């Protein structure tokens, strides 16, 4: 099972990763573990720029040959960018989940250091526990 977990990111129990971007926004995607479990992605729906999201709101869809899965906003905020490249090339998310496969950027007053996010090592244990 593919399971690359970069140590500089934060993680959610629903398998999103969160990165603090330079301009104060948060970048959000799904983890290597999540893309591997879904298999070849064929369709990605990203939230519109300007959309206000609640924490935990379903705001993107990643759909593989096998199944459709919702992506949840890790924090409340406003979408300031989305990765339109995924619409034409959903496979970018399989190939590079932490880079070219990012989903959207969120302007938020919240912080990645909030207690509900997991560190890389905590996420690794969480995935191992889920697999049992």
């Amino acid at each position, binding site marked *: 099972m593919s399971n690359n977990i970069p140590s500089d990111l934060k993680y959610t129990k629903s398998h999103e990763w969160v990165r603090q971007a330079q301009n104060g926004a948060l970048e959000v995607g799904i983890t290597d573990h999540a893309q591997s479990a879904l*298999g*070849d992605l*064929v*369709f990605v*729906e990203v939230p519109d720029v300007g959309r206000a999201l609640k924490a935990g709101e379903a705001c993107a869809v990643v759909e593989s*040959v*096998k199944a459709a899965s919702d992506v949840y906003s890790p924090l409340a905020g406003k979408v300031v960018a989305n990765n339109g490249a995924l619409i034409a090339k959903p496979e970018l998310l399989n190939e590079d989940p932490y880079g070219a496969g990012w989903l959207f950027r969120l302007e938020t007053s919240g912080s990645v250091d909030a207690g509900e996010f997991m560190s890389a090592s905590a996420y690794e244990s969480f995935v191992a526990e889920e697999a049992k």
Partner: protein
Amino acid sequence: MGLKTPLYDTHVREGAKIVDFGGWDMPLHYGSQIEEHHAVRRDAGMFDVSHMCIVDLTGARVREFLRVLLANDVGRLKTPGKALYSCMLLPSGGVIDDLIVYYLSETWFRVVVNAGTRDKDLAWIRRHAADFDVEVVERKELAMIAVQGPNARRKAALLLKPEQQAAVLELKPFFGAAFGSWFVARTGYTGEDGFEIMLPAADAADAWNRLRAQGVAPAGLGARDTLRLEAGMNLYGNDMDENFHPLESGLAWTVAFEPKDRDFIGREALERAQRESGRELVGLLLEDRGVLRSHQKVLVGGGTVAGISGEVTSGTFSPTLNRSIALARVPKTSLPTVQVDIRGKSHAARIVKPPFVRHGKPLIDISQGGLT
């Protein structure tokens, strides 16, 4: 832990993602389901289908027995080696299973049934075989490998002895023949040319590795499903089961009502259904982005009439068409499009006639509508 085929260790070594399929630990894919799909459409791929159930039926009255047991008529099988696709029905007309039957000799027919229905199929066959003194023997010691694709036959023929190769390449579509302890048939479940090879379990891993050396790509159940759906072929348990009869499952072509005096199990119910049935299985092509999935609700006629609805029975993303396709059971309609409820939103889908793809080529027009 589930049941394992003789190729299980080979799959694990190839890095397959193993999933449970009807109690069997089977490969879903070996890395990329879509690449495996394309390998079959463009070159050659191979599937371990050893979980399927091979049953030999022998006895002086075996043909007479099968003319009662099956909705298609084995009376049509005149040349040894010829195969026939058929449903096996309940008296209600509901489908117990779909199968392929091979005519090997006047006292020996072979049927291949689905893995997930093995126990009930064998029980049903045995129950009726007793009346015809037909012996029913499950060939558990055989493995089965399907080699499919435009280059599949040429590559698979190399598994045989040089003096056998010409004969196997001369097999006509839907014919099989024995080659020593192997049985090779020009059949499949992908819409491509190819062989299904039944062989002793002890030979399976070596045959697989030799095919691999010929550049035949291992392909899992994921690709098998997208290939069969593009080919417009039904999957038992999705597109038909005991609650639906063949006429509302796109399988009317497999029911032989002629000759009229052949009294097969389910005939009376189907004759009634011919007059009364209001549903049919159709192909759908999604006009928008998204993926059709089984059990999604289909609204016919704008969806304004309560109760007039159907359901997607199999849906997927078609790697060949780069669009989503499905089979759906819907009320008979002359409308060109229906609405499908995908995750709470209504999407237009065009009714099309399967197959969607055959021999590597799209058979439906995908130029209208579609992705933006």
